[in-house]
């Protein structure tokens, strides 16, 4: 079976204005809307398009997290994934642990392609895809803005600081998505009904037998320092004079 595995993380919705809890133990999550990490949605959209072109037969979505992540997996099934796997844990995991847990599923499912978001918009780590590729001893193509599959390879256009880089990697491989890869489709109501019947397997993290011991400790969270509002100038001459006085022009 030509299978693509897509990672799905449950995160605070990108439209929510994130606030730090007054006690500094984290950010406010009570009553806050949760969604699929936007980069993961792009990853799933790309997988669906590959299947629609006939280059893949099955899309499996995978999440590592609490039972609540079933909501995001159901949404992924409604978008068009064929089945879902939740590796269930109440423990907050570091990217190294997530990569190890994902590797266990990769070895079981044997996908020819794994697509993940380049980063999650909560911890902003940007690590899991690269770590999974290293542990799997397979190529990585990060920050993808275009994927082209041909002859057992994938040619990936990557968004790098210099511009657009193109690399070609042998399959199986791990790709991570950047913003401009595609625009994810909207979920239609009938698809939500259909998604309820699609398989969603829940596997206890402990059953995978991987080392997920936390290594890093987050001591506290703080709000970022705020910039002060400056002055309004009346015209271009006053602006240039002010900048000149500060030695900036």
């Amino acid at each position, binding site marked *: 079976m030509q299978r693509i595995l897509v990672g799905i993380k449950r995160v605070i919705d990108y439209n929510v204005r994130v606030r730090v809890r007054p006690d500094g133990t984290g950010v406010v999550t009570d009553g806050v809307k949760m969604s699929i990490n936007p980069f993961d949605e792009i990853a799933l959209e790309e997988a669906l398009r590959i299947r629609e072109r006939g280059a893949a037969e099955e899309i499996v979505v995978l999440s590592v997290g609490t039972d609540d992540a079933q909501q995001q997996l159901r949404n992924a099934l409604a978008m068009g994934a064929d089945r879902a796997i939740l590796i269930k844990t109440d423990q907050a995991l570091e990217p190294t642990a997530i990569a190890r847990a994902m590797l266990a599923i990769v070895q079981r499912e044997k996908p020819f392609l794994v697509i993940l978001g380049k980063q999650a*918009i909560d911890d902003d780590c940007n690590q899991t895809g690269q770590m999974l590729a290293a542990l799997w001893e397979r190529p990585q193509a990060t920050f993808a803005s275009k994927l082209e599959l041909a002859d057992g390879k994938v040619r990936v256009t990557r*968004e790098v600081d210099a511009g*657009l880089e193109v*690399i070609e990697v042998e399959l199986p491989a791990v790709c991570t998505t950047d913003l401009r890869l595609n625009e994810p489709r909207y979920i239609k109501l009938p698809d939500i009904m259909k998604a309820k019947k699609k398989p969603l397997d829940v596997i206890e993290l402990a059953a995978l037998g991987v080392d997920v011991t936390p290594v890093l400790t987050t001591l506290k969270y703080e709000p970022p320092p705020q910039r002060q509002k400056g002055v309004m100038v009346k015209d271009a001459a006053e602006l240039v004079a002010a900048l000149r006085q500060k030695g900036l022009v």
Partner: protein
Amino acid sequence: MNRILIVAEHLDGKLNAAVAKCVHCAAAIPDADISVAVLAADGTAVAAAAAAITGVSRVVLVQNPANEPALAAVLAPQIARLAAGHSHVFGPSTTFGKDLMPRVAALLGAPQVSDVMAVESATRFRRPVYAGNAIATVEAPAGRQLVATVRVASFQAAAGGGSAPVEKQALDVALPSHTRFVSVSAARSDRPDLQTAARVVSGGRALGSKENFALIQRLADRLGAAIGASRAAVDAGYAPNELQVGQTGKIIAPELYVAIGISGAIQHLTGIKDARTIVAINKDAEAPIFEIADYGLVGDLFSLIPEIEKNL
């Protein structure tokens, strides 16, 4: 002693300015002994530039034609080998470092701290999370190797004038052949690099067209500035994506940032809030950009840009 290995980013025989910023970050760690690893085809000039950064104790040069153009899958096993005996392995939080360092960390079985913005001790660091809406203080266990990427906008470049020895090293490491470089569409120009420029002029959706975006280029040329763009301007096709400033583009900290026709979406502000001085020009007096600007000017950019040029 904390032995820190910094991975050098370079292109076309030139050391990336981010490396001197990584050295500055590493030097904030108490009792630091800093080495810079240059993996290149030749790399002589790059190694010499790295050796001149104050605070660097030695430069390790690994010459191999496979090292250029840089591919994470090829570099990672070599860096993992060089990392032996080092307490910390640092790389810049550029697309080069973001791609490479987690692969190194996984090979080492080490944790990674991404986007270090401040060093509190050899094991304690501050980093932005939630698109910069919160700052986390992270503690790593002592006596265990740690990988980190350095948020270059948070650090000044370490000074030049040093003269560290350059040691060539041959590595007997099996390199993968599953990854092949095809091409890069580098928009090369004489203009300063967006991520390290002292001055940046950025244009937003209000420019209205790709042709009008030339106004931004003209002003940038007058100021000797790099060019940036808002995500809206990039999505509208006025500017190429590598010029995008913001959380999903480049995070920058120039001395002077001039935002023209940019309303100031949160994700854009996240990318510029470390700038020393922010100037905002917008026709909407209620635009959020004015809340964080040091100097605000309300008016039509098409008449204000020429007036600014006249006054320069």
